[in-house]
């Protein structure tokens, strides 16, 4: 197992390198210039030349590329061209917000999607149950997150006034208290901060989670259908096991392997979903930051964000591969 993980990490290095190189060149192939983007209609020839020189963008591309790689190896991603903050610091601030959003929407998607998928598979012959569930799934698939998001905001924030309209809550506070141990010395404050974060997280997680739940339910339905028609299920039934035991003990565990693969993919989908979710709910986060960085041609920031996205996807896939062995003892890694 250890050897396997090590091998995967070694393989991840060229992947990361490839992704970083693609981003580097893609950003520069895109027409448009960060200085023009920054100065807009007031960009004079002279000012543009000054700006280009100050940002080091007048150097030959290969020089910039080597410089970028060399700095990245030292974990120096440079500073945002626009706001001047160090990229690593910026990402460190945004990352937790995106992470909690992705995780919580994954939980929402799993809590809604998996049961719907399973029930819909098991009751596939009773139209009164299967059809409405499938319609819910279809609704989720066809409702864009920005639309659902605005709807949730109008109902739960504007009219019912239960949830806040904007922001990500006091996540900085939570992290700070966890770091310096205040979380345990003054649990009350900590709980209030956590509550604040969750309070801000509920609507975005529901919106993103619900749209993702549709995919999860469709996929878990078909995974369940496949498992339920296997020989060992018939055997289990034949030996007189109750339906509940058949489903939970035999079928559910076996459908976990294909489901885990989905969850791996799912993180990638959820990450792209954060872009719109973070915009609609006005949450700080990596997704929105990346889109703005590309729009402003803020090269270092966009490069940093994509590097982090790539790393997340690599890590999640690795974890998913390792989990296969946990859910299915027949799988071992050497």
């Amino acid at each position, binding site marked *: 197992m250890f050897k396997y993980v090590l091998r995967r990490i070694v393989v991840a290095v060229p992947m990361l390198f490839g992704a970083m190189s693609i981003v580097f060149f893609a950003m520069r192939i895109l027409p448009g210039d960060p200085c023009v983007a920054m100065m807009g209609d007031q960009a004079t020839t002279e000012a543009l030349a000054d700006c280009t020189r100050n940002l080091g963008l007048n150097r030959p591309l290969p020089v910039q590329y080597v410089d970028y790689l060399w700095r990245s190896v030292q974990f120096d991603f440079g500073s945002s061209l626009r706001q001047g903050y160090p990229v690593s610091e910026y990402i460190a601030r945004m990352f937790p917000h995106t992470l909690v959003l992705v995780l919580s929407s994954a939980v929402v998607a799993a809590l809604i999607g998996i049961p719907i998928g399973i029930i819909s598979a098991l009751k596939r012959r009773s139209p009164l149950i299967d059809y409405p569930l499938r319609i819910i799934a279809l609704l989720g698939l066809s409702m864009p997150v920005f639309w659902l998001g605005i709807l949730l905001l109008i109902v739960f924030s504007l009219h019912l006034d239960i949830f806040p309209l904007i922001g990500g809550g006091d996540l900085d506070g939570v992290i700070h208290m966890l770091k310096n141990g205040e979380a345990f010395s003054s649990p009350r404050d900590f709980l209030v901060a956590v509550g604040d974060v969750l309070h801000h997280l509920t609507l975005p997680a529901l919106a993103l989670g619900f749209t993702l739940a549709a995919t999860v339910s469709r996929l878990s339905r078909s995974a369940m259908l496949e498992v339920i028609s296997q020989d060992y299920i018939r055997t289990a039934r034949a030996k007189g096991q109750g339906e509940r035991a058949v489903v939970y003990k035999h079928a559910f565990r076996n459908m976990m392997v294909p489901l885990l693969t989905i969850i791996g993919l799912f993180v990638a989908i959820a990450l792209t979903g954060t872009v719109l979710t973070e915009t609609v709910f006005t949450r700080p986060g990596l997704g929105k930051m990346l889109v703005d960085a590309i729009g402003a*041609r803020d090269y270092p920031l966009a490069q940093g964000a994509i590097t982090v996205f790539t790393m997340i996807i690599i890590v999640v896939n690795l974890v998913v591969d390792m989990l296969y062995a946990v859910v299915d003892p027949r799988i071992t890694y050497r």
Partner: protein
Amino acid sequence: MPSPVRSRFTLLLVTVLAVLLTFGLAALVEPPAAQAQKKILNIAAKEPDSLDPHSSILGQTQAIVRFTYRGLTRFAIKDGKVTTAEVQPDLAESWTLSPDGTVWTFKLRKGVQFHKGFGEMTAEDVKFSFERQIKRTPGTRFGVNLEVIKSIEVVDPHTVQIVLKSFDAIFLLRMVGYQQGYIVSKKAVEKYGEQYKWNPVGTGPFYFERHSPREKIVLKAFDKYYGGKPQIDEINWFDVPEDATKLIGLEKGTFDLLYPEAVTADFASQVEKMGAVIDRRGPGQQERFYINMTKAPFDDIRVRRAFMHAIDRKAIKETMYPGGLGKLAISCVPPGYFGHIPMTFPEYDPEKAKKLLAEAGHPNGFTIKNYFISKSFFYPKVLTLAQEQLKKVGIIVELQVVEHATFHENIRKNLDPFVLYGGTRITDADPWLSLFFDSKEIPDPATGNKGTNFAHYRAIDDLLAAGRLERDVKKRAAIYAEAQKRIERDLVCLPITDVAGQWARNPKRVSTPFDPDYGEFSLHYSYNYPEMLKVLN
């Protein structure tokens, strides 16, 4: 014995309940009583890219720095209105000009304090503020507006002498607290270096407290502001990119002031429906076409005239900005700018346009391939309207909608034979005409010139040079009137709409002493006197 699977589900259920309970608790946590008494102003806008007033042209940045910085002069308040081309003393108490018109001596107001204990503002700070821009310190953007300065002398801590290369009619306008005119603390800039953009220190009514990136900027009332502590104690400047969210927030009471991305008829009607008002600050931005007179077929004046006959300006204006949302433009130098005169343009007449095209050898019109237009702001909408109108006379425009940055790049490569453009400048005909009609500003990819004379116009260079030297106000006005007449004659510019800077305000929460309709000038796309805003409870 319960199955392990079932107990896991129970655990999950308990977790979910616990989470929901926490939400409930959080919702019940009330802000402390002290907070309720504080006068807090909540603004929804986009996040600025910097708080160094010399560093950014973004609307939101220019709007927020007006809260924290001041200049030597300011736009005059006359008869309850903020005027456009007259100035009053601000950080300077008085000034004199030498008989030859090249030496300005400013007497500074005594006792003006910088924020955060950076001490009294002195002539050193004034000298430093202008010199850092003239020297083109990396990150500064407006040095070009101070090029007229030859040297700056500190006479004593409260007297500064600025020597110009030659007389400059708009020098006092350049000294207004706007872009290059803001005075920064020398000590603070030297202390923070590159980090100054997020550690701003000015002399304005509010000081910078903190910035949570992608969330908000907090400003606080400066109790040593020379004009007296403002009524508002604290300002939260939220980063809200979506206009829909801003509107929900205004209705809910989360926000008191909105800086929208774009004010549409729909936006305006929603604001009105919820009992809020729109503060319009003219003259604002002008949207207009420049026609490249060196690019075929537009090098033929008949084709340019046909183009103008084909465009129904009123229809575009009414579609984009119905009623009071905008004004039909009447000149290539907008009203409110010194030197403005009304101009006339070929009226909308497709038949005449077709006839002119036929005369010019295009009886069946022509096609413009790969016409680039920005996908942002007003650009795509105005252009598709114009595209439809041009089609009626046989001019087919094949659009390529691109990112805003790409659009800026491509128009400077002269890829579009006519260019749609918008903007606001210092309110005088000189800087305005110099940027858009001076031959020095003709963009040219061969030389790397990225100027904004998209018409490739050369016919008013002599007038611009003369205007810059003229000291007689009336004669200056006459020079710019002549320039506008030449532009009218040569048909290189077709202005469509003058669009004011517009913010939505909840009048039950915030008041301003100026009339919502054009009561204040908006070079900053915002409030010139934020210290006069009042939070009502």
